[in-house]
């Protein structure tokens, strides 16, 4: 695997494994990230502040007053050798509720029209696939997930929206995502997920982690309102949406 080391100013560098969305590249990114974390735990890589894994690259943020690139790269060299041998991190399986109707789905009709299929077919395709969380970024807790069924692939909207409502479930190119926060955005909005994806009060503020798998489950607008009320009153735990089999496996592991 070819590796490029790209300059990102005097306080960061990007180790790029490729320029595509590809499980092999992701595995290499994860393996290097894990190797760096181990090295740091052993007291190495002084001056490294944090790493940011993406689909295809790992960016290292460092303090130029505490280290220099030459020292950092020398220490990285043996870790890079290990990067070719990793497997993508195995995460948890989620089943997240989505309302695919009415105000929650402003682009559903247009997407169906553009693709030449019915709205019900769009929903069945979108909710009929297991998605991998490739990475988190853009906004706190924002999951880049894929891959979309071929039939649902569309370029981004020609006119990005100034305001995408929080919870929006969106598609663009080969990916799907949930906007945890109101923000501008150019993706097509197919529905709304009532489960908050980010809560700074939790030990792990982001609900989803890179490597998790997500399946969307259609619920009616009324059902979603009930779910949302339950979540905000605390009657429903967001972890309810972990897949039942996955929950059993976790419980068994913890019991062992």
């Amino acid at each position: 695997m070819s590796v490029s080391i790209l300059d990102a100013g005097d306080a960061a560098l990007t180790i790029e494994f490729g320029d595509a969305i590809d499980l092999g590249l992701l595995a290499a990114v994860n393996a290097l990230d894990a190797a760096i974390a181990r090295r740091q735990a052993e007291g190495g890589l002084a001056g490294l502040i944090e790493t940011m894994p993406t689909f295809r690259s790992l960016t290292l943020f460092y303090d130029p007053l505490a280290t220099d690139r030459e020292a950092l790269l020398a220490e990285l060299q043996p870790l890079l050798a290990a990067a070719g041998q990793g497997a993508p991190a195995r995460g948890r399986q989620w089943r997240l509720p989505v309302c695919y109707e009415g105000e929650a789905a402003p682009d559903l009709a247009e997407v169906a029209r553009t693709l030449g299929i019915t709205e019900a077919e769009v929903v069945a395709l979108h909710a009929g696939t297991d998605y991998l969380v490739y990475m988190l970024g853009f906004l706190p807790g924002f999951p880049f997930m894929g891959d979309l069924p071929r039939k649902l692939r569309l370029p981004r909207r020609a006119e990005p929206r100034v305001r995408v409502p929080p919870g929006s479930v969106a598609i663009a190119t080969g990916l799907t995502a949930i906007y945890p926060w109101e923000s501008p955005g150019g993706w097509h909005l197919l529905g709304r997920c009532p489960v908050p994806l980010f809560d700074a009060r939790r030990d792990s503020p982001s609900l989803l982690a890179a490597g998790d798998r997500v399946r969307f489950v259609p619920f009616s607008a009324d059902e979603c309102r009930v779910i949302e009320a339950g979540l905000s009153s605390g009657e429903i735990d967001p972890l309810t949406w972990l897949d039942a089999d996955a929950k059993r496996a976790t419980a068994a592991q913890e019991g062992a």
Partner: protein
Amino acid sequence: MNTKVELEIVAAGAYASVQDGGRRGHRRIGVPWAGALDSRLMRIANALAGNVEGAPVIECFDGGLQVAARGGAVRVAVAGDASVEVDGRDGRRKLPSWRSVTLAEGESLRIRRMLSGRLAVVAVADLALPAVMGSAATYVRAGLGGVGGKALAPGVRLPAGAGDAVDRALPQPPLADAGPIRIVPGPQTGHFTDEALQTLTAAEYRVTAEADRMGVRLEGPRLAHRGAAEIVSDATVPGSIQVPGNGQPIVLLADAQTAGGYPKIATLISADLGRLAALRPGQALRFATVTADEGASIARAHEGETRALIAAIRPLLPDGIDVAVLYSANLVGGVVHALAAEFRPLPSDHA
């Protein structure tokens, strides 16, 4: 009775928020660092107020901020090239910036306007706010830090005090630097035509009205992409210069998204982030390229200057004593000049 001593925001000006050194370690879940846009201003302001250098401060854009002491005396310090005045018991008086002042109960301090740049930092003695994910820095989009995760607004009160009851001044403020903003080419310079990087460093760019804590949109000669103006999203860093399809560069700052799909032609060096953030809409700027190693040398020199500035801070005698006497007694200002000149000859040195 034990009343709470607080600092009330009377007016927030164009935009004011609580910031500190920033929130590290969470970019992998999409959380930017936030934090002071110009950490030197934060550190100097805190040193003037008698705080630790990374304590939370108020960062404000374009002046207009007014704060008042409630429930007791509050010491505040202003860093930035600002015109400041105090509404006190004995009437209104002007105050130089780059010093602290103890406001008696009911007195207020106002940043009338910026004399240059657009950023000022007000440090507040004994300002304590809970850390959210390791920092008190306000990040509005996700409602993190500060006071309720929001920008400061009139009526907000911050816990405050008089600290160690010593006011201080910085004898010689940092020198304004009108030199080019320095950039390191990459990480995606190869996504642009060969002329694009030349254009970026040869032409003049102008700050548009879209300039805030997230980033600064520039306008100037178009930077042409070699192919599509899109990449598979990867990490952004503070200082990334991303270029969307319209060819106009956008410099990302402290609150910017942590990942993006536009190619990044170059990255600002860390020492120049504060200078760029301080440029006003309409202001022109130029870029010059350096290597990453040169950028790191500049970062070390910048740090040396900042430490020299902080080391030069002197206690003030009780009010009424002419501050200018202290200014003229300054013995270390020349050190600062020498350090700056080593890396960037001042215009006067060419004369």
